[in-house]
């Protein structure tokens, strides 16, 4: 099992997104660098639209992730309600 | 292994062919264990250059910045030509010494191990 990772801008827009990720992926750890936050988690990170919307208090389209995303490591799956990054080993 | 190209007969220009150097050949020269001069150097030289000129003319210009340089006893220096031990005849030319186009010469001065003995 290896870590997957996602790196997001450290700004107000990403704040709700980061909170949602940490909530839905309790095993994740964060590394803060100037301007960005890198989140690592064993094997899989799941981003749920519902949780993000709850954190932001407004509707959120999964593709809006492109506005906060800086980098990622892992295989991606994306649909209306979720965005996941995972390894298959 | 040949390249896989769209059409057979893939070929491009060999940009560093001997003929392109206007009568010179290329020789590379490096002084082992003195890495403060960070890289081996490239020299365009007539094949008729006497080997001795590497020691008397070229090396001082290239390597004299190093405090070890004046300590070199050239009579004890050992040489490698293209990674094989090699004993040059100082009075013969590069060509006569069998030094071809784009050959690499490395010399070692016994006892001189660079700054602080760190091959620097």
């Amino acid at each position, binding site marked *: 099992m*290896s*870590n997957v*990772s996602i*790196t997001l801008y450290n700004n107000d827009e990403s704040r709700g997104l980061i909170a949602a990720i940490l909530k839905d992926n309790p095993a994740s750890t964060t590394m803060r*660098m*100037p*301007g*960005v936050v890198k989140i690592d988690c064993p094997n899989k990170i799941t981003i749920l639209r519902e949780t993000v919307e709850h954190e932001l208090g407004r509707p959120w389209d999964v*593709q*809006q992730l*492109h*506005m906060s*995303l*800086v*980098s*990622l*490591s*892992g*295989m*991606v799956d994306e*649909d*209306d309600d979720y965005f996941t990054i995972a*390894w298959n080993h | 292994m*040949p*390249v*896989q*190209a769209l059409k057979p007969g893939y*070929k*491009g*220009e*060999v*940009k*560093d062919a*001997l003929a392109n*150097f206007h009568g*010179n050949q*290329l020789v*590379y020269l*490096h002084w082992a*264990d003195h*890495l*403060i*001069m*960070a*890289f*081996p*150097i*490239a*020299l365009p030289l007539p094949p008729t250059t006497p080997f001795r000129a590497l020691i008397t003319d070229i090396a001082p210009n*290239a390597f004299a*910045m190093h405090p070890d340089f004046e300590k070199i006893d050239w009579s004890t220096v050992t040489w490698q030509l*293209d*990674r094989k031990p090699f004993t040059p005849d100082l009075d013969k030319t590069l060509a006569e010494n069998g030094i071809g186009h784009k*050959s*690499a010469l*490395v010399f070692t001065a016994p006892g001189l191990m660079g*700054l602080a003995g*760190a*091959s*620097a």
Partner: protein
Amino acid sequence: MSVTAPKKLSLKERYRILTRGLDWTTTYQEPAKVFPHAEFEGIKIRDWDGFVDPFRLTMDSYWKYQAEKERKLYAVLDSFQQNNGQTAITDGRYVNVLKIFLTAITPGEYQAHRGFAMLGRQVPNVGLRIAAQMQSLDELRHAQTQIHSCSHYNKYFDGLHSFSYQHDRVWYLSVVKSFFDDARTSGPFEFLIAIGFSFEYVLTNLLFVPFMSGAAYNGDLSTVTFGFSAQSDESRHMTLGLEAIKFVLEQHEDNAAIVQKWIDKWFWRGYRILAILAMMMDYMLPKRIMPWKDAWEIYFNEAGGALFADLARYGIKMPSTADVANKEAFRLSTETMLTFYQMGHASGFHSWLPSEDELKWLADAYGPEWERLYLPRFKYFRELEAKGEHYYNPSLPQLCQVCQIPMFFTEPDDPTKICFRDTVYNGDRYHFCSDGCQHIFENEPEKYVQAWLPVHQVMQGNCGGATIDDVRKYWAVEDGEDNYDYVGSPDETMWKGWQADRLKVGS
């Protein structure tokens, strides 16, 4: 046809209908004539439709999100210019990383733009073509935003003025140019694995994340904004690279051997380019973010390790030369820096010796072996400078035939010995800095004998003349402005003037 209540389409379905449905199999022209590049590399594809689209952006969403990114980015650039943000960076030295970036990386973005256009036309799968086309657009974006971000710096600082002209000519830029020329002159799948996988997925995180974080740390709002904004496109690109490699590997078991050869090649070629990045991170950022070896550990060994563990089921292994890169991790930045320091007269940016504090930071990061090997060199260069005898190497370097970097790399297991490798092909001898570069040559000698090696071109008289002045003119390196040490440069004088004025205003 009656119009009833519309059924709900999921993102995946909608994307499939609007993209996959576009293609048809040509019959008036043979498909092999429409897509002539599809097969010559020997990759076997059983089912082109097996490609899984990584991101499902339709063009309208693409325009929408990219426009929003651009509005934000250009608002920052405008504000940076209006407020003279260049005066707020940590130190005038910092701008030299931008000089390297603009002359080395930006033209590479342009090459990637053209290369992905080629891919976007040549691959017989509509999903792959669209992803490549969007990447082609993105890469043009990166080239242009970098030029626009650096434009304001160019008005004040030297060394940024002739980036694309220099990219075609200057010796160290030939390293990057040959890398992209190599990828672009390859077939479509090799290009995809070279740039989309090895470079984007395995290596560019190193370039953009810690380095751009470093830009933020050094007060360069302009660069950090374009850097992270570009990287948000890169995550799409990386995913394309990964999906593409999975697709190729799943199509036919014979593909694994070809793909492994390309991974080995392009890992090594990409890694060699990163030598200059290692120098930028360890020696050129006035405030450092993390040492090169830590970035390498996080972004190659951890992230790359997980990736290759995932590809193991296809029989794909870590690049054969990864262990050499690990052995070099403690010295890569220093060997590179020491070379540029002594080639300052022939470079388009400034170099300088690290301060005592910086040496201590490096020693802490890299340990006693680093101190033993390199402190004596820094100490000696400092002594020479104190005597007013800054060392500039009077000779031109021997270059590696493949990566084109001066042969300053040392043996993987002995940092006191230059790593020499050579081979004879068609009666001519060719030299390499490493086993990695030698293997690349030996796999395709017909290609690499063509290399435009800058030092050899100078010696053939193709670079403006025989003297260093002639050659600097050919390179558009302004002598006494762009080159030599930062100390004493016009950049330094200007920077100090700004600081002095600031103190006066403050008091």
